[in-house]
């Protein structure tokens, strides 16, 4: 694939909600803005990471803030390309390609808008391969890429440039700017060379998300008929194994906001009320699944909840009591199983007192 057309965006959005593992926000509005951008500027050129010149300049771009706010404070078509221009002016160099922070949710689509607006390609890949709650969990950060120099713009074109000592400080500062600017901003950050990109990106996730979305759409319906096609599409990807770990209805869900994150638990019971319940731990995303005491899947592997009737992924904000669901677990890309990655994304990093055991060994 080397072009993305407007007609593929619905599949991309659907695939991205699946990969968001419960977080990431609703991609509906990012999809609309991307459709309009492609209509205005033409299809998106996609480039594989290995085809990027080692000395090229790549920057990751996306929305930062509260997805709930952008339900009212809508993005505009030139906001991302304006941000990119501001970034170029700040560092005094042209950007050759853009990449996504995270493929899970609306930020899978925002780089496409920037790319067509500026007439540059978008990289087939992202910095997470899923959705994760914190910036230091991005593959770029794990591979040692600094988040700054970075530039962020709000809806009205107000700008802020960042040079910070660490990813954690950057995260804190950019979130305060987002809050002050009405809850949602666009940021161009993690500038990197082509050589750095190749060792830090989770490759192929943009085209994979489109393929995943198509699989979900073509097999829409009860989970039983979705499982086989889903297994096949994951098996030949960087993810690998896909398992159906539970089916039932949500009998309890309680989350609360702590430090800006939606933290809590959900309990799912078998349809017939027999056997042990599935307990899910949530921090924006679904992070840990246990049946009784036994762990059946944990972060950084993917845990995904879909509507039992249609196979449509359900994010954690919308999951509620009475929902009839199926729960899938999928192996994460190898990058996230390295020692460096597990130092920031293992279950202990989320406060769970247990070691990470890859899905295939559970």
């Amino acid at each position: 694939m080397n072009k993305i057309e407007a007609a593929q965006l619905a599949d991309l959005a659907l695939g991205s909600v699946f990969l968001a593992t419960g977080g990431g926000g609703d991609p509906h509005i990012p999809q609309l803005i991307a459709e309009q951008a492609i209509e205005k500027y033409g299809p998106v050129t996609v480039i594989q990471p290995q085809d990027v010149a080692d000395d090229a300049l790549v920057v990751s771009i996306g929305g930062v803030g509260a997805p709930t706010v952008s339900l009212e404070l809508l993005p505009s078509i030139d906001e991302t390309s304006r941000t990119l221009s501001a970034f170029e002016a700040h560092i005094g160099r042209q950007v050759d390609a853009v990449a996504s922070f995270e493929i899970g949710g609306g930020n899978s689509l925002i780089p496409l808008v920037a790319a067509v607006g500026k007439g540059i390609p978008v990289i087939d890949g992202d910095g997470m391969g899923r959705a994760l709650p914190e910036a230091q969990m991005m593959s770029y950060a794990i591979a040692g890429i600094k988040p700054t120099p970075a530039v962020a713009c709000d809806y009205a074109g107000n700008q802020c440039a960042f040079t910070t000592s660490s990813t954690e400080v950057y995260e804190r500062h950019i979130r305060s700017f987002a809050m002050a600017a009405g809850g949602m901003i666009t940021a161009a950050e993690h500038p990197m060379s082509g050589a750095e990109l190749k060792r830090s990106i989770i490759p192929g996730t943009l085209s994979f998300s489109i393929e995943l979305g198509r699989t979900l759409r073509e097999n829409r319906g009860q989970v039983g008929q979705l499982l086989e096609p889903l297994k096949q599409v994951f098996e030949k990807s960087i993810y690998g194994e896909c398992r159906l770990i539970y089916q039932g209805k949500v009998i309890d869900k309680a989350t609360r906001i702590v430090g800006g994150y939606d933290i809590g638990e959900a309990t799912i019971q078998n349809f017939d009320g027999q056997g042990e319940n599935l307990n899910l731990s949530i921090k924006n995303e679904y992070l840990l699944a246990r049946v009784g005491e036994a762990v059946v899947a944990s972060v950084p592997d993917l845990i995904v909840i879909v509507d039992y009737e249609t196979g449509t992924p359900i994010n954690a904000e919308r999951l509620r009591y009475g929902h009839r669901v199926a729960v899938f677990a999928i192996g994460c890309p190898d990058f996230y199983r390295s020692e460096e990655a597990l130092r920031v994304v293992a279950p202990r990093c989320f406060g769970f007192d247990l070691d990470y055991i890859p899905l295939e060994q559970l």
Partner: protein
Amino acid sequence: MRIGIDVGGTHTDAVVLNGDDIIASTKALTSADVVSGITDALDTLLHDAGISSEQVQTVMIGTTQFTNAIVERRELSTLAAIRIGLPSGEGIPPMVAWPRDIVEAINGKTYMLHGGFLYNGWPVAELQTAEIDAMIKDLQANNIENVAISAAFSPMNAAHEVSVAEKVKAAIPHARISLSHSFGRLGLMERENATIMNTALLPFAERVVDSFLKALKNRALNCPVYISQNDGTLMSSEFVRTYPALTFASGPTNSLRGAYKLTGLEDAIVVDIGGTTSDIGVLQSGFPRESNVVVNIGGVRTNFRMPDIMAIGLGGGSIVKDEGRTIGPQSVGHRLVQEGLIFGGDTLTTTDILVAGGGANIGDPRLVADLPEQTVSNAQACMATMLDRGIEMMKPGGQGMPVILVGGGSILVPGDLPAASQVYRPENAGVANAIGAAIAQIGGEAEQMVSYRETPREDAIRLVTQAANKRAIDAGADRATIRAVDIEETAIPYMDEGATRVRVKVIGELGSRAGA
């Protein structure tokens, strides 16, 4: 005495209630002009009940007219859709994601203006007088009289919507205007969509309400008239002239509310068995459990709440195969009376199974006398299993729950169901929709995004409740009887701690104020 009427696509059902007692009920065909179908139903009803029109204090109507107009792209008026939110949202104008055919049917104009608010109360931008004046000139030049106005965060601060509406009204005095904050919920695109659909229906709403009132007047019914909304509450007929979109999907709600009325069970599973499907819903405190998924009406995303319904392919016309081991989802539907075995046709249906098993005496039972006993018992077991599994999936917890069977097909399941603590088969289950329409409560709903750091929780809930109360009173509720039935607080991720969406729903008894 009250009359409940359900004007469906094919049938017009009506009931007379005296308090909670059903005095009479009837089913007539819906006529093309609506009026004669209603007058026919009223004639039968008043005759059967043996009452005069003066004895009727209120009439409640449930109708699918407005939903059908949207779905079928007819009776829609041209309009202007104005969004106040620039510089945000530039490039995604109103109706951008709508299906082509409905955009063409409406053939409206869109305008985007600077203004609107942020979550924290700061303006997105100030209103610009010159921009508004130019837009109004354009409205006048194009003879546009129906106007939908939406603004960013208007459920929290409607000032910009109201201000632009006042200017439009001053320049075009007979303009019909819908403001998006009247449609509550946060989510600008969905709220705007609801507002635009509502505006497109305004002239049709005048005609529909007029024809309802005419039909009633023909039979000397001069009492107040109310129309049911999607959440199972009522609005006055005058209110519907302004808010026709609030009637969307009131059908399934009325069926659930009717089941509640027929049994008095506040918490139960309701199974409405029709010709092709069984629709399974849940009653919580006497109201339908709401679905949490985004609702499309005629292909347009909206923010309306709809009952959580699961449809399974089991109805009175479902086709039986494999010696009774497979039922549906194919159905002969309304052709049952030609194609079913007991009616001389050659398709084995669930109704034939019922008759062969001695469960009912319909058609000619001799035509199914030769059915193998094994087929009949297989099919009976299969139907019970299908329903049981569906009920099990909809039940909120693992424990037993009462199940109410309504709809024409409810006779299909004669025995007990393991998933049910008890099965109820109320009399008059066939006209549950009309009974549901005849309930006597008025609702109101409001939602805002608040910071509990700045506004203490109790104050915030009180403010939102006041807004909901005002909506209920405007819709015809008696102020003294209003109570909050649902308070939903959703914390917002990635924001200040304490940032919360608060939604309050209130219900009150029907006021004495005349509705017609």
